[in-house]
């Protein structure tokens, strides 16, 4: 069976810096895959290559067997890849509910003309979008925040709204960019539980993360990057024993 996401021999350079060097890995349907590595390892670059923010210089990214490298982000989103941002990117001046409703954009279709004429089918679509957005807020355990201005919420709440916004499109692949960044211990534990619940629901997840503890608990497989190269790709327990991984992470600790 073809994996849901295949990254094959992908490279990306920024000037003289080889941010990602010939990296390959797969994400199988229904699994949680983590992408870890020290700062500057190329995690975010790789994430951007998958989500369409940047195009690779070489290599292929395939989603359900179809090449998607170089597609703009809105096209990638329409295919069923949904993402969150490392630095929270909620829409200012909109409520939490409205933010989540935007997440349903790729799964609804009322355009300029239908919107202006307020055609009956668009009312039904709007009702459906709102109902699903409320469901997503329920799933995240924050239904009471629906009418709050999104950017006025606490950091942890904003993360939850972002997750709801990413989930409301019922993505085939959920891309999480450092979801534990800026969260406290309790919130990180909540996040781990949430990822576990998502997997139970059959959502496939690719998570880029700095927090080793979170990754080891929730993922089925872990890819480790160092200086743009893949140095390990295995189950969490095997990765923890991997000599190269230990060197990279302990080496960092020595330096600190």
């Amino acid at each position, binding site marked *: 069976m073809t994996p849901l996401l295949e990254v094959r021999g992908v490279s990306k350079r920024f000037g003289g810096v080889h941010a990602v060097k010939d990296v390959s890995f797969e994400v199988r349907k229904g699994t949680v895959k983590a992408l870890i590595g020290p700062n500057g390892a190329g995690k975010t670059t790789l994430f951007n290559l998958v*989500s369409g*923010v940047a195009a690779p210089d070489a290599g292929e990214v395939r989603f359900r067997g179809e090449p998607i490298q170089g597609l*703009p*982000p*809105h096209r990638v*989103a*329409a295919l069923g890849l*949904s*993402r969150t*941002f490392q630095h929270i*990117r*909620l*829409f*200012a*001046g*909109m409520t939490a509910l*409205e*933010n989540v*409703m*935007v*997440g349903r*954009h*790729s*799964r*609804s*279709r*009322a*355009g*300029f003309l*239908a*919107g*202006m*004429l*307020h055609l009956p089918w*668009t009312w039904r*679509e*709007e009702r459906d*979008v709102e109902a699903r957005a409320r469901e997503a807020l329920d799933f995240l355990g924050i239904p009471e925040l629906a009418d709050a201005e999104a950017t006025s919420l606490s950091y942890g709440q904003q993360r939850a709204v972002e997750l709801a*916004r990413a989930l409301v*499109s019922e993505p085939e692949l959920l891309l999480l960019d450092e979801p534990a960044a800026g969260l406290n211990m309790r919130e990180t534990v909540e996040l781990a539980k949430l990822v576990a619940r998502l997997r139970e629901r059959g959502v496939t997840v690719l998570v880029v993360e700095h927090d080793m503890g979170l990754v080891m608990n929730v993922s089925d497989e872990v890819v480790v990057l160092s200086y743009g190269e893949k140095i390990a790709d295995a189950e969490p327990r095997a990765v923890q024993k991997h000599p190269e991984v230990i060197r990279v992470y302990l080496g960092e600790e020595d330096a600190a």
Partner: protein
Amino acid sequence: MTSRYARIAAFVAIVVAVQLATRAAGKEFFLTQLTMSAYYTLVAVGLSLLMGYAGQISLGHAAFFAIGGYATGALTTLDLSARRGAPLVALLARARVLAVRPDPYGGEALGVHPWAACAAALLLAFVVALAIGVPVLKLKGHYLAMATLGFGTIVYSVVLGTSALGAADGVGGVPPFPLPGGLAVGGGRADRVANYYVAWGLVALALLLLSNLVGSRVGRALRAIHGAEDAAAAMGVDVARYKLATFVLSAVLAAIGGVFLTHYNAGIGPGEAGVMKSVRYVAIVAVGGMGSLLGTVATSAVLSFLSLRGYFGTLDDAVFGAVLVLVMLFSPEGILRLDARGALAAAVARLRGGEGAR
């Protein structure tokens, strides 16, 4: 949703009340300037969508107004009667694209029918907006402002320098625009009340369509683009396409205003394409509140009317400039949106903070 229609109903009620008030006060001649201000309001309300919702600025919207006005003016004042024999002219005449009108010397002239001219004018504005919008909307902030300013300057220079468009005199002798029921958009005194209602009816229709749009999936996506462009794209919003569609929509609305005002005034001059006009529209949107269509309509109605009646005298442009400076300094979100209590509380807090520091 119901409040949307309630607001538009209230707007229509005000339009009717103003007309009755002018009659009661014996000032029906005010209706002429009120009618003209309605056509300027079409430009402002489209620009309000572009600036307030999509977050894009245009300092060139007067150009689209002028494109609409000049196109309909030039086409309807053509005289093809000398070429009646040409097959194309004969075909267009038979298809009623051409219409006969009396010429100033008592003869007959053959020009483009106002409806066909209007369609051509709007198509032209559509194509120009598309051609300008595709490259220019890749720019942001200052750069977009400068590029649209440049576009406006080009259109102004072209209409001013083209003798076929009357150069500094503009196009005159534009025939009235016939409507069903024997009405016509034109300067005839008998039609003054009807023209007032036609003009403000168009504004009400634009307001209805745009309010619907703003409350729809598209409006939500536009606000998302305004809030965080990259995140909107990640949600599947085709940011470039939405910006372009909004730009084109606002340009076509401006052109509609230009078409009808040109028929109403029986002509148009190069001043309508001027940069000062574009700045004026931006000032009106700024006062009305970015993202408040009704606020923009109210502001445009009042300011355009006062300006057209000449209340600002020789300081006409200065008034709009001053308005822009004041709004940007004290309430960038627009005066009608100014939360008076919140602003007061903030001012008090600032004063207290200042004392504390001392």
